[in-house]
C-alpha cells in the first residue's frame, strides 16, 4: 500500500541510534517508511565525519537529529514538518528519559527499551506530540507490572482527566507534611570581550528553577524587581532590572502577565523551570580577565593572565577554570601560579588553570611560558579565546531579585519558601587574545 504523504506538520518515524549507528529504538508512525530508512541515516550522518546541519533532506525525506551523550535522537519526515516542534519534541523526550532513568545514554536506553516504546507511543500519536508532562506520565507509565483490570475505573478517569485537562501538569492528590517551595535563580553570563578589553557582547540568560513541594492545588503569585523593555528608547530611571524578554512554563497564565505583569500559576509538583529571561542592560561581570600574551622570537610565547573578582568581598566564586589556548606547535609550558593549579593539556592545546575559590575583590595572576617547536611554515592557529567557567552563589549578574512568592491554597496551610541565587558561566565567557610581538610591540595577525 502506498500512502500519499502530504504537507502536515509533524514526523513519521522516530529512532535512537548509538554511536556506531545501531538502532536502539525504532518507531515508525506511518506506513510511508520501511525500517531500512534507518540505514540511510546511518550512512548520511552517523558514519559521516563532517555533518554540517542538524537537518538533512534527501529527496523528499528529511532527517532531524539531536546528539546527546553519543546517542542520536532522530525524527524522520516526508513532509514540510514544523522543525521547531520536532526539535522541541526531541528535547522533551531527552528530558523525560533523564527524569525516568536518571540519565540518558546507551545503557539506560537499552535497560528500559520496552518502557521507552510505551512512552513514545503515549507522548506521540501518528507524529503529533501529545501530553508529555512528566508528572502525569509517571502516574500511569511505570516499570511496575500492572494487571490491566487492576486499575480502577475511577483511578484511570482521574489520570485521563489530568492528561487532557487544563492543568495537565499537576495531579490533584498531592500531599506533603511540610509545605515548602525552593526557588533557584540561575543566571548564565555570556561574555565576548575583545583583546583590547572592550565588551563586544555581554548578556544574561537566566532561568528560575522551582521545586514545589506543596499540597493540594496551590495558587502561586511570584514577583520580581523586573520591568520588561520593549522599546529600548523608552528607558526610564528606576532600580528595576530590565528584562529584554521572558518566557514561561505553560502553567503560567500569560494573559495575567500581559495585563498586570504578575506571574501567577498552579505549579507542577516537584521540580520545573518556571521561567527563562534574558537581560542585556547593566550586566555585572563577576570576573575580569586581563591577558597579556607576548611572542618572544619564534620559539616562545609568554603569558601573564590576571583574573580579578569584581563583586562584594563577602561572596566568592567557586570552581573557577580558565582555559588559556596555546599555539598548535607548543611543546611544553612552564606555568607559575600563586593560587590554584595550572597545567598544560597538550591534547587540547590549552593551559588549564583551576581555582577552587576566589574571594570578592581578590586578584590572581598566572605567568607562563610556552616553548614552540620551530616549524618551517606556520600552522594556521585560529587563536581561540580564553574561556572562563565559574560559579558565584548569591549573586545575579542582571541584578534580579525575587520580591515575593505567595502561595494560596484552600486549606490555608503555611508554606516555607527558600530563594537561592547563582551566577555561572560555562563555555560562554570568552576573552579574545592578541599576540604581541616582544620586539616592537606591534600586533600581528597570524
Amino acid at each position, binding site marked *: 500500500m502506498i500512502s500519499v504523504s502530504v504537507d502536515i506538520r509533524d514526523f513519521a518515524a522516530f529512532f535512537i541510534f548509538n554511536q556506531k549507528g545501531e538502532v536502539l529504538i525504532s518507531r515508525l508512525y506511518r506506513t*510511508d517508511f520501511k525500517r531500512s530508512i*534507518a540505514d540511510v541515516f546511518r550512512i548520511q550522518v552517523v558514519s559521516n565525519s563532517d555533518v554540517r546541519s542538524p537537518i538533512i533532506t534527501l529527496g523528499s525525506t528529511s532527517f532531524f537529529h539531536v546528539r546527546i551523550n553519543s546517542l542520536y535522537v532522530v525524527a524522520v519526515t516526508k513532509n514540510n514538518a514544523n522543525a521547531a516542534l520536532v526539535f522541541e519534541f526531541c*528535547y522533551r523526550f531527552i528530558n523525560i528519559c533523564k527524569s525516568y532513568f536518571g540519565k540518558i545514554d546507551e545503557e539506560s536506553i537499552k535497560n528500559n527499551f520496552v518502557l521507552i516504546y510505551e512512552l513514545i507511543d503515549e507522548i506521540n500519536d501518528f507524529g503529533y506530540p501529545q501530553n508529555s508532562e512528566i508528572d502525569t506520565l509517571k502516574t500511569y507509565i511505570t516499570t511496575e507490572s500492572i494487571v490491566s483490570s487492576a486499575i480502577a475505573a475511577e483511578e484511570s478517569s482521574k489520570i485521563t482527566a489530568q492528561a487532557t485537562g487544563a492543568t495537565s501538569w499537576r495531579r490533584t492528590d498531592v500531599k506533603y507534611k511540610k509545605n515548602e517551595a525552593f526557588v533557584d535563580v540561575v543566571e548564565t553570563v555570556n561574555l565576548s570581550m575583545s583583546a583590547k578589553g572592550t565588551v563586544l557582547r555581554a548578556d544574561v540568560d537566566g532561568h528560575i528553577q522551582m521545586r514545589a513541594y506543596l499540597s493540594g492545588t496551590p495558587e502561586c503569585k511570584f514577583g520580581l524587581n523586573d520591568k520588561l523593555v520593549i522599546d529600548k528608547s523608552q528607558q526610564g530611571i528606576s532600580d528595576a532590572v530590565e528584562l529584554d524578554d521572558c518566557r514561561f512554563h505553560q502553567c503560567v497564565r500569560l494573559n495575567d502577565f500581559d495585563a498586570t505583569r504578575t506571574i501567577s500559576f498552579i505549579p507542577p509538583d516537584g521540580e520545573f523551570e518556571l521561567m527563562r529571561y534574558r537581560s542585556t542592560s547593566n550586566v555585572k561581570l563577576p570576573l575580569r580577565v586581563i591577558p597579556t600574551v607576548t611572542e618572544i622570537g619564534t620559539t616562545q610565547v609568554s603569558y601573564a593572565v590576571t583574573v580579578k573578582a569584581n563583586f562584594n568581598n563577602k561572596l566568592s566564586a567557586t570552581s573557577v577554570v580558565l582555559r588559556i589556548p596555546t599555539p598548535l606547535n607548543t611543546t611544553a609550558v612552564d606555568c607559575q601560579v600563586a593560587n590554584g593549579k595550572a597545567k598544560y593539556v597538550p591534547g587540547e592545546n590549552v593551559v588549564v588553570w583551576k581555582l577552587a575559590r576566589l574571594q570578592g575583590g581578590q586578584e590572581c595572576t598566572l605567568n607562563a611560558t610556552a616553548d614552540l617547536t620551530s616549524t618551517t611554515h606556520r600552522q594556521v592557529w585560529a587563536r581561540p579565546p580564553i574561556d572562563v567557567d565559574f560559579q558565584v552563589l548569591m549573586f545575579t549578574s542582571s541584578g534580579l531579585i525575587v520580591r515575593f512568592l505567595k502561595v494560596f491554597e484552600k486549606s490555608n496551610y503555611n508554606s516555607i519558601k527558600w530563594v537561592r541565587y547563582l551566577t555561572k558561566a560555562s563555555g560562554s565567557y570568552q576573552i*579574545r587574545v592578541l599576540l604581541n610581538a616582544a620586539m616592537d610591540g606591534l600586533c600581528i595577525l597570524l
Partner: protein
Amino acid sequence: MAAPGQDAKFFQRGKIEEFRAELHAAEAKDKKFVKRKIVLKKIVANITMGNDMSPLFTDVVQCLGTPLLEIKKMVYLFLVSYGRSKPDQIHLVIPNFLQDCNDHNPLIRALAIRTMSYIPIPIVTDALNENLRHCLKDRDPYVRKTAAICVAKLYAADPRRAEKGGFVEMLRDLMLDSNATVVANAVAALSEIGDRQDGVIFKLNLATANKLLAALGESSEWGQIYILDSLLRYVPEKHADAEVMAERIIVQLQHANSAVVLTTIKALLYLMNYMENRRLIDYICKKMGPPLVTLLSSGPEVQYVALRNILLIIQRRPAVLKNDVKVFFCKYNDPIYVKLAKLEIMYRLARAENANEVLAELQEYASEVDIDFVRKAVRSVGRLAIKVEDASDACIQALLTLIETKVSYVVQEAIIVIKDIFRRYPGKYEGVIPTLCEHLDALDEPEAKAAMVWILGQFADKIDNADELLDDLLYTFLDESVEVQLALLTAAVKLFIYKSKSDKAKELVFKVLKWATEDVDNPDLRDRGFMYWRLLAINPTVAGEIVLAEKPAITTDSDRMDRGALDQLLLHTGTLGSIYHKNPETFIRNATGKALKDSPALNAHSRAVLVPVARTQLPPTTVNVPGPGPVESHDRADTPPLPDAPLPSKPTPPIPPEASGSAENEGDDDGEADPDDEPRGRTNDDPYSNLDGAFGNYTADEPRPMGAGGRQGDDEDLLF
C-alpha cells in the same frame, strides 16, 4: 518513581525457533507471567534490531490472553509492526481489540483504537469503524482526543471510506468540544486531512477561529501549536478582525516552547497582511524581536531553526531586530551551522552605524579554521564594503590584510569580492591592483581566477605588464574551466582595445580567438569568440565602445528577496521550507503550496505583490535507469561544424556581417556581470530567483535539500 530497568540483557539477536519454544514453555508454568514477559521483551528488542519476527505472529498473539497490561502493550507493538503483513491472520486478534474497545478503563479503550488505526488493512479498519464512531463521542476526553487522531490515520489509509463514514463531520464537531486537548487534536487531524491534495477543504470562519482561540489557554503546548497553526486557514474579512486576533495571540510569544513562539510569529506575520493600523503593526514587530532573540538561548538545533527564520523575517519586516546585530555575533564554540546562519544575519543587519563593529567581528572570524566559515566571512567583508559606503575604506584595508596571510582560500575569496568593489566604486581603489597581481599564482579556483582575469582585462590600461601577466595565464587556456576561459577571452579583447598598437596584445588576442573558435567545444565560448572576432574585424572603435561600455552599477539591492515571494514563504515559518528558504512544493513530493488569500481586508501592499501558488509538481516517483551520461538537449549541443573560415593572420569576420548587429548583448558580458542573472535567465518569472542574492553565487554552505540527479537511486530507496 520508577525503578531503573535491567532489560539490556535482552538486547541480543535471537532465533525465531528459540523464541517460539520459550513462548510454548511459558504456557505451562509461568508464575506472574514473568517468562512470557521476558520472551516478549527479547522479541521487541529483535524487532528494533531489524530482525523479522513476523513468523511468530500466531505465537505472540496467544499472549493476549494474559491480563498483564505490560504484555498487552508489547503484543500491540508487535501487531503495529507486523499486522499489515498478516492480513490472513489478523482476524485472530480482532476479538481482543473489540473487547478492549469496550473496556471500562478509558486508557485501554484509547489504546485499542490507537493500535487498530495503526494497522491500515480493511479487516481491521472495518472492525474499527463502528468503535471509532463511539469513541469520538466517548465520555472520557482522553478517548476522544485519541479518536480524533485515529480519524487522520483512517483518512491516510483510505480517504473515500473515511469521508463516507462521516468522520470528517464528527471531527468538525470535536472542534467545539469542551476539552481543549480534544479540540487541539481535532484541529491537527483536520489540518492534515485539509492539506491533502485529494482531501476535503479545511477553512475556518471567524466564529470557529474564535472558539479555537478560547481553547488556546487550556491547551497543552503542543495543542497550542496545532491551534495557532490552523489560524492560517482563517482569512480575515475586516482589518479589525485580524487586529483583534493578533492581540489575542500575542501573549503566546512568552511561551517557553520555541515551537509555540515560532508558530505564534507565523500567525502574526500572516495576520499583519490583513491589517491597516500602522501603529499596531509597528507594535507587533517590536514585540516579536525579543522572543526571537531568546530562541538563541535554546539548544543549537532550535537556534538554527530560529536563525534561518530570522533571516527571512528581517527581510520582510526590517524593523524587527534592526538594532540587535550584536546578539548575532558568533561564539567561538557555536556549531558551524549556527555560525554560518549568524553570519548572513550580521550582513543583513549591517549599516553605517554598526559597520565597524561588524567588520571587526568578520575579521576575527576570518582567522578561524573552518574553511567555509572563513570564506563566507571574507566574502562578507567585501559585501559590507559594497553595502555600506562609509565602511568601504576599512573593508578594503581588512581585505588587504587578509591577502597578506597568503592562505590560499582567503586570498581567493578576497579577490572575488574586490572585483565587485572595483565596480561599485570606480576609480577609488585601483591602487591596490599591484598587490593583487602579486598573488596571481595562488589562484587555483575558477571563480577567483576569473575575477582576477576580469580585473586584468578591465584595467589593462593601468597595469603596465598586463600583457605579460595575461600571457602567463593563457598557457593553460585549454585546460581551464569555461568560466575562466570566458574571462580570459574577454580580457584579451579588452587588452587589445586598450593597446591596439602593441604587437603582444595583437598576438594574444589572435591566439585566444583562434582557440576559442577552433579548439573549444563549448558553444558559449565559441559564440562569444566569433562575436568578438567579427566586432574587431568590422569596426574596432565600435568594438571598444561595446566591450568597454559603462557597466551598470553594482548594488546590494538584489539581495532582498521579492516581497510577494517572501510573504508566501513566511506562511511556512518554522517549517522545513523556512530552513531551506524554499516553498515546500518545490522540494517535497506531493506537498501543497500556500498562498495569501485575497479578501477585502488584504492590505494594498500585500495584494500588489500577491504570488499565486506555483503549480510546480515534482515528478511522480520517477524510476531512474542508470545509464550513460546526462540527457542534455541534443538539439542544441550538436551545433554544426565550424564554419570553414580560413584563419588569416588578421581576424576577419568568419560569418556574414549582417549577423553582427545582434551581438550587442548589453556591453560587458564576461560572465561576472551579475551572478544572480545566470539562474534567472531561464526562469525569468521566478520570484525566488534572487533568493541567494546576498552572497552572489556562493552557495557552498547554503542549506538545501539533497537528492535528485545522480542520487536519485538512493532517493528511491527512501520512498516506500
